[in-house]
């Protein structure tokens, strides 16, 4: 298999892409160079980790992702069959419970992951953006959970929505975000917020993989600021 020869001729002996040369023009080559530099496949799917990663504290993040998987999967099923199904039928109750408890797991382990990163100062050595995206995920998740509570279509959701309406009105955002507007709450809960959380989680994982796991605070090989 030859990859040399005339640079103007396409090498048909292989389908794998060639690394973009430094002088190759165009935004596609530029993006490819940037991706190859910031996140090579060996960093995206590593087979080895530093010794300090062998701690249960580093499991909290991936358990949060696992919980998110079940939240989204059960949410898709609930959205497909509707409120009467999830309130009345046995299998509907089951998926309703899966959705509720996987959300509990998502928040519990997200907060444990937050504690681990806070006391481990996970924003060090160029990881500030990773930390900030994590904060945004936390905030959007709270919005997602809140809109979920007010679209259960039961007395509990009505009670929460009526009280939240007063609270949100006191902030001046009641005209934009109306907890009593079921269509708005449902649309946000099943479409906008879940897509936001999922995309941000993907970005967060890419950021973590691009920079690697931060060294412990007392590591003698601490990088210079």
């Amino acid at each position, binding site marked *: 298999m030859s990859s040399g020869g005339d640079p103007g001729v396409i090498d048909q002996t292989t389908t794998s892409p060639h690394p973009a040369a430094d002088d190759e023009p165009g935004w596609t080559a530029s993006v490819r160079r940037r991706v190859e530099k910031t996140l090579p496949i060996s960093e995206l799917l590593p087979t080895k980790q530093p010794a300090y990663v062998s701690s249960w504290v580093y499991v909290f993040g991936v358990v949060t992702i696992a919980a998110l998987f079940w939240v989204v999967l059960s949410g898709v099923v609930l959205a497909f069959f509707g409120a009467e199904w999830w309130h009345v039928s046995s299998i509907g109750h089951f998926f309703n419970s899966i959705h509720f408890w996987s959300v509990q797991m998502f928040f519990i382990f997200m907060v444990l992951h937050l504690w*681990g990163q806070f006391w481990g100062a996970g924003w060090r050595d160029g990881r500030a953006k990773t930390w900030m995206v994590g904060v945004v995920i936390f905030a959007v998740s709270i919005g997602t959970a809140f809109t979920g509570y007010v679209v259960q279509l039961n007395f509990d959701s009505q009670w929460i929505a009526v009280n939240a309406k007063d609270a949100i009105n006191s902030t001046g955002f009641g005209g934009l975000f109306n907890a009593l507007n079921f269509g708005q709450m449902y649309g946000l809960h099943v479409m906008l917020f879940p897509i936001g959380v999922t995309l941000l989680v993907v970005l967060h994982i890419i950021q973590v993989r691009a920079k690697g796991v931060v060294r412990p605070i007392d590591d003698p090989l601490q990088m210079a600021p």
Partner: protein
Amino acid sequence: MDAPAPYIHLGFILISLPNFILICVMVLLFVLALVAPFPSHRPKEPHDE
């Protein structure tokens, strides 16, 4: 299940018992994660880098 949860009221702290128990469990889980030994898949080989 339909009855309101009991509350703990200590000065300015007001928290439902289920929430208090959950936070205690989370703190316990966090401490356990720090001290519990993590299983290793493979022993260190002499020529392993």
